[in-house]
C-alpha cells in the first residue's frame, strides 16, 4: 500500500478543493482520450432554456466547463431518466466509448439499479469475458446537508456487495483526482462516490494527471496502539481523534481503504496483527454494512492477533432524519469514534 499520500502532504503543489481536483481530472482525461464522454442531468449546463446553457455543470458543479470545452457531443445533458442514463453509459462502454455518467445523488440508484447490478456489473462474467464495460458512475452521497431521508444515504455497502462493480470512495482532493483518473482508465464499471461534505475540503494536488491504484489503502496516520479504519467523510474525523489521542501518547493507524471493492484487506490485517485492536468507522447503516464487512474479515483472518472486541462505529439502523440535531447525532462523530478507540484500548 502507498503511505501517507492521502494525508494531504505539505508539498509544493497548489491547494485545490475536492471539487476542483475532480473537475481538473475530468478535463485532463477528456483531453487525453476522445472516447471519454460525460452524461447526466445538467452536466453540460442545462439545455432548452431561454437563458444560459451553462447555468450548471452538474448541480454540484463538478462538470463545470466541460460542455463549453468539449462540446455537446461529448458532454451530454439528459432528461431525468436514470435507467436510460446508466443503460446508455453501459451500452456505450460496450461499444467503444468510456462514459462517465453522473447520478446526481447516489440515492437515485433505486430507479436505475438494474442497469448497474444486473447489467453493467455482470456483462464481463456472464458473457465469459467477451464484454468490456469501461464506465464510471459518479454520485454524490452522504448526510450532513440536511437533505433528509431520500438525499443523504451512503449505499456503498449495497454497491460493494455486487460482484463485478468496483467502488471508490475518496476522502480528500488528492486521492479524488488520482482515483477518478484510475476509474476512467479502468475496464470495469466503477462507482465513484463523492461525499457532499468533502467538496469544499482542500489539499495540495499536482497539476498533472496521475493515477492511484485500486485496492491500495492509504495510512492517514500511523501508530501501533490501535487500528482505525475509516472511509470518505469519516476519515477527517478519524484523523482528528487519532491526533487528539496522539497528544496523550496513544498512537493509532488510521487506514483509509479508498476503494471498498476491491478492498485492501491486507493493509488492515497487517495493521491489526500489530495493534490487536480494531475500530471501523463508517457512515452507512450498520446491517450488512462495510464496517461489518471489514470486521468479519479481521475476525476470520487476524483473529489470534485480536486483543479486544472489534468496535463498529456507524449510523444507527434508521433513515437519515431531517432535523439538524438528529442528523448530527446520526452521523458517527468524533466523540463516538474516540469512545470506541478508548474502549478497544480497555478504557485507557
Amino acid at each position, binding site marked *: 500500500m502507498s503511505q501517507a499520500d492521502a494525508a494531504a502532504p505539505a508539498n509544493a503543489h497548489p491547494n485545490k478543493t475536492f471539487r476542483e481536483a475532480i473537475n481538473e481530472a475530468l478535463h485532463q482525461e477528456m483531453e487525453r482520450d476522445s472516447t471519454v464522454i460525460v452524461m447526466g442531468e445538467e452536466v453540460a449546463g*442545462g439545455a432548452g432554456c431561454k437563458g444560459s446553457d451553462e447555468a450548471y455543470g452538474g448541480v454540484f458543479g463538478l462538470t463545470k466547463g466541460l460542455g463549453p470545452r468539449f462540446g455537446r457531443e461529448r458532454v451530454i445533458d439528459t432528461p431525468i431518466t436514470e435507467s436510460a442514463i446508466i443503460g446508455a453509459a453501459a451500452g456505450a462502454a460496450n461499444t467503444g466509448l468510456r462514459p462517465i455518467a453522473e447520478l446526481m445523488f447516489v440515492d437515485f440508484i433505486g430507479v436505475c439499479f438494474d442497469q448497474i447490478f444486473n447489467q453493467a456489473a455482470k456483462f464481463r462474467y456472464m458473457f465469459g469475458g467477451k464484454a468490456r464495460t469501461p464506465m464510471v458512475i459518479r454520485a454524490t452521497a452522504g448526510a450532513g446537508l440536511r437533505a*433528509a431521508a431520500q438525499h443523504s444515504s451512503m449505499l456503498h455497502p449495497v454497491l460493494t456487495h455486487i460482484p463485478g462493480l468496483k467502488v471508490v470512495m475518496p476522502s480528500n482532493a488528492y486521492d479524488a483526482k488520482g482515483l477518478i483518473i484510475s476509474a476512467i482508465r479502468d475496464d470495469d464499471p466503477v462507482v465513484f462516490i463523492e461525499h457532499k461534505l468533502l467538496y469544499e475540503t482542500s489539499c495540495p494536488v499536482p497539476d498533472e494527471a496521475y493515477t492511484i491504484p485500486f485496492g491500495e489503502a492509504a495510512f492517514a496516520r500511523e501508530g501501533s496502539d490501535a487500528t482505525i479504519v475509516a472511509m470518505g467523510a469519516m476519515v477527517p474525523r478519524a484523523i482528528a481523534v487519532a491526533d487528539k489521542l496522539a497528544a496523550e501518547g496513544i498512537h493509532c493507524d488510521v487506514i483509509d481503504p479508498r476503494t471498498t471493492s476491491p478492498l485492501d484487506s491486507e493493509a488492515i490485517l497487517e495493521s491489526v496483527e500489530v495493534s490487536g485492536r480494531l475500530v471501523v468507522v463508517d457512515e452507512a447503516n450498520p446491517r450488512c454494512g462495510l464496517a461489518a464487512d471489514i470486521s468479519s474479515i479481521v475476525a476470520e483472518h487476524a483473529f489470534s492477533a485480536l486483543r479486544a472486541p472489534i468496535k463498529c462505529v456507524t449510523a444507527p439502523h434508521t433513515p437519515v432524519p431531517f432535523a439538524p440535531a438528529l442528523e448530527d447525532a446520526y452521523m458517527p462523530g468524533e466523540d463516538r469514534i474516540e469512545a470506541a478507540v478508548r474502549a478497544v484500548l480497555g478504557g485507557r
Partner: protein
Amino acid sequence: MAYSKELLTSAYYTMTTIRQFEERMIKEFMAGNIPGFVHTYDGQEAVGVGVCSHLSDDDIIGSTHRGHGHCIAKGCDIELMILEIMGKAEGLCKGKGGSMHIADIDKGMLGANAIVGGGPPLCNGAALSMKTLGKPHVAVSFSGDGSSNQGTVMESLNLAGVLDLPHFFVFENNHLAEGTGDEYAVAGDIAERVRAFGIPCDKVDGTDFFAVYEAAKKAIKHCRSGKGPYGIEADVLRFDGHFIGDPQAYRGEGELDDLRANRDCLKIYRERVTGEGWMDTSALDKLDEDAAAAIEKGVQRGLAAAQPAMEELYSDVYCSY
C-alpha cells in the same frame, strides 16, 4: 358561469397563502432559519388550488419535491408545515422529514417526494384502495415536465389504464426541470404521451384558476364515476429558482419580469374576479392580510420551537442496532 362566494374566497385565500408562504420561506431560508434543500411553488398556485378545490380529506394527493403548495391546497396546517420545514419537534412529521418529505395522511396528503417520479406509482395504490374498497374517492398525482420522462411515471400511466384506476394525473409543465427545458428533454409532447396509454388528457392554461378548476372538475368526475384515469397538462411557470438560492442563470433576459408582469396567476385571478364583479379589491386585500398574519404567527412559533429530542432518532422504525 358563476362561482359561489365561498369558493371564490377560499380559492383566493389558499392561493395567496401559498404565494406568501413561499416568499416567506425564501426569506427565512436566506436568514438561515431553514436547513436543507427547499423548492418553492410560487407561480403555480392556480394549479394546486384549482385541482384540490374539488377534493375532500378522503381523496388522496401525491406530491413532489415542490410540495408546499399542494400541501396547503390540500388543507395541511400551515403552522405545522412551517415547524416541519424548520425541523422542529412539533412539525407535521416531527421534524424528521423536512420540506422534501412532508406528509399528512389524515388530510389525504400522501407525501411530498424527493425522488422525481416517486409519487405516481403510490397514487395508483391509493386509487386501487378506493376501487377495491368501493369508495367514491380519487387519487391525484402531481408531476412536472421533467418527471414525465421518468419510467416510473410512464409505468404508472399504463397500470392506471390497465386497471381503470380513479387516478387523476396532473402534469405541471413549468417548462423547466432544474436548468433543463421541456423543449429539450421531452421528446414529443406530454399530453400526447398520456393519451397514448388510452387515457384522455386535456391541456390547460395553468395560470388561469378557472380554467384549471373546470378541467379538474371534468377529470375528477370522470375518475369518480369509474371510467378510469384522466390527465391534464397545465402550462405554468415558476417564479423562483429550482431550489432556494438557485441563481437561475438559465433564464432569458427579461424572462422573469415578463412572467411576473403577465403570467402571475394571482394577478390574473384578481383581474378576473374584480372584472366580473364577483369580488372587490378590498375583500381580496383583506384575504392577503389574513394570510400574512397566519404565516407570521407560524413563523414566530417555528423560530421559537425546539428541535426533536434525541430519542426521536431511533423512533418510528422497527428496530435499532
